[in-house]
């Protein structure tokens, strides 16, 4: 039964893609669509999607028929993070909006352009890195993206450039006239000794459902530093599948932040390949879920060479009937001696109906390594609550204090002051902070 419906849905998606894009004209797209067709959407039993029945979610909530054009989109600035001087890129329904975008950094410092145009113009950096890191053979969503992406952003920080001004990409879905399906593809290349910050933020208007299949490939060259933020705080009916594929060279430093605060369905695949020595990678995640939101973070950190360091901290608070899923894989390849790899996943369940599934997966083939992982799931510490209350603090405030303290550990790692202020205010709001 379920296999059939998954097949039907896959077929619907394939024909929707074929209607929009001349897949035959591009060997990579053509191949990717074939792979997607063969793999199909992950079946309910699929090991990597067993808690996250994406096919069922898509089938229930989307028709994949062409939707009528949405109306005009007013007041885009309300989605912007206040007080940040940034290079602003706005994508509306997956399409770059020149009118709302504004790049303030000089082009010698950072190049931001349409990925499609960069590839069409045979930009050597773009062609060198595009589609080189994503594995489309083992993930049908990756194959779907590669076959179907219509637009995306190419960001190139040349060697030795330190870009203080962050790039913020606002993905705005205007689902006012009907369901909205967006397939975007980005490429970020950080040259040797460069430094940059890229933020992705997702918002929407309209009451219809919207699904985003987003792939971002990232190449971080020797001794470069990159901070990547994903802010998933959409009040509306957002369903989203993200793949972030990061490839790091010697002595590079990457910090990723994934904040999932609001929406219906999120699957975040974060994959870091540490292909060099002296690399430092930090992965931070915070998911504050309520209602019936499902948020699934699947992370892989792959130590391919010796002497690198990775550290992962994901924390979640599940309220109402929300579902959290965390799967953290650490691979240490046979020659990746002297690897340090740490992972922690901490969860608080606030109701009986909320759930979390957490699974660390360590596969270590080298012998001289330091690895640790720890998962905890619990309720709010009653003893601590009592302690706070015994000082005259009412229960709601005491709860908010403890939850905020729990979440604050992740927030503490955010260095950019205005970003931190913004995230702090959003998180405070979500946790009903009143102290």
């Amino acid at each position, binding site marked *: 039964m379920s296999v059939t419906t998954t097949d039907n849905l896959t077929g619907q998606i394939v024909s929707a893609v074929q209607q929009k894009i001349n897949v035959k004209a591009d060997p990579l797209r053509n191949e990717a669509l074939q792979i997607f067709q063969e793999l199909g959407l992950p079946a309910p039993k699929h090991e990597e999607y067993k808690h996250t029945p994406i096919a069922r979610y898509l089938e229930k909530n989307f028709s994949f028929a062409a939707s009528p054009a949405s109306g005009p989109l007013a007041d885009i600035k309300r989605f912007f993070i206040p007080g940040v001087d940034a290079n602003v890129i706005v994508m509306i329904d997956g399409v770059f909006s020149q009118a709302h975008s504004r790049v303030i950094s000089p082009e010698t410092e950072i190049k931001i352009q349409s990925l499609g145009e960069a590839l069409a113009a045979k930009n050597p950096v773009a062609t060198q890195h595009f589609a080189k890191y994503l594995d489309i053979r083992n993930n049908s969503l990756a194959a779907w993206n590669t076959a179907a992406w219509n637009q995306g952003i190419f960001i190139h920080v040349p060697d030795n450039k330190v870009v203080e001004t962050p790039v913020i990409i606002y993905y705005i879905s205007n689902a006012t006239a009907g369901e909205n399906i967006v397939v975007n593809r980005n490429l970020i290349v950080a040259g040797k000794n460069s430094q940059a910050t890229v933020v992705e933020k997702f918002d929407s208007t309209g009451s219809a459902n919207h699904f985003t299949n987003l792939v971002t490939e990232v190449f971080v060259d020797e001794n470069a530093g990159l901070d990547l933020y994903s802010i998933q705080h959409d009040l509306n009916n957002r369903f989203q599948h993200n793949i972030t594929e990061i490839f790091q060279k010697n002595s590079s430093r990457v910090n990723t932040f994934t904040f999932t605060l609001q929406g219906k369905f999120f699957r975040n695949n974060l994959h870091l390949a540490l292909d060099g020595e002296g690399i430092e990678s930090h992965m931070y995640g915070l998911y504050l879920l309520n209602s019936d939101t499902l948020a699934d973070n699947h992370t892989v950190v792959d130590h391919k060479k010796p002497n690198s360091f990775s550290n992962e901290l994901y924390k979640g608070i599940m309220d109402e009937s929300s579902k959290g899923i965390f799967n953290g894989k650490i691979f240490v390849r046979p020659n990746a001696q002297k690897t340090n790899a740490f992972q922690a996943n901490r969860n608080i369940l606030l109701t009986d109906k909320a759930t979390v599934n957490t699974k660390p997966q360590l596969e270590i083939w080298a012998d001289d390594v330091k690895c640790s992982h720890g998962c905890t799931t619990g309720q709010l*510490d*009653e*003893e*601590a609550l*009592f*302690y*706070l*209350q*015994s*000082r*005259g*603090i*009412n*229960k709601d*405030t*005491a709860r908010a*204090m*403890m939850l*905020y*303290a*729990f979440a*604050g*550990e992740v927030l503490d790692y955010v260095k950019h002051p205005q970003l931190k202020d913004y995230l702090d205010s959003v998180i405070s709001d979500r946790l009903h902070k009143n*102290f």
Partner: protein
Amino acid sequence: MLSIKNLQAKIDDKQILNGINLEIKAGEVHAIMGPNGSGKSTLASVLAGREEYEVLGGEVEFLGKDLLALEPDERAREGVFLAFQYPVEIPGVSTINFMKTALNQIRTHRGQQPLDAVSFLGLMKEKMKLVEIDQSLLNRALNEGFSGGEKKRNEIFQMAMLEPKLAILDETDSGLDIDALKIVANGVNKLRSKNNAVIVVTHYQRLLEYIVPDFVHVLYKGKIVKSGTKELALELEAKGYDWIKDEVSVA
């Protein structure tokens, strides 16, 4: 001020308090002593409103109010303060922010204006001096990684900040070095007045040399089996509890 009548309580199906009777008037200091496991902390927790304990019978009246009907935070706002035998570590909650929130919720309850940041810090400085606690300690997360003695001192600091009417000090002296003991006792004495009362739970006569009690009670198997004046503490120090246990079993 506090009137406990025939108080009985249990935890996890085990009855710990077996009918406690105690009258405390404003201005008094009562010491509660007794062997390990006799129910001293249980009594303190029940008075502070810890949910894990179920009250099976009896009454507690505090300043004319039914104390047992109040939530823990309401009791604190009415003026009950428990200095914990084992203060809880709460990572991520800043001590200063916590203290300010607590004080201002209590002040609001008393019909006073909440303190602004400047006056709050001023008050804090004053009370820090009183209990000789270091600012660097208060800049950290609440009790996190504090030494045993530092936690106790922090309890007394909080008491000084909140100015309770009834302070219950549960073995605040254990884990304190001699100097800290004097400082803590001194802090308590400075807060003593004819309007408030203190319950001191302790195993040692030493603390009672500094905080001189008006009454000493012995708690044994969930009951107050003997009451007296400060001389009783001296007698216990000299003779231990066996003679009291014998008296109880004979009776």
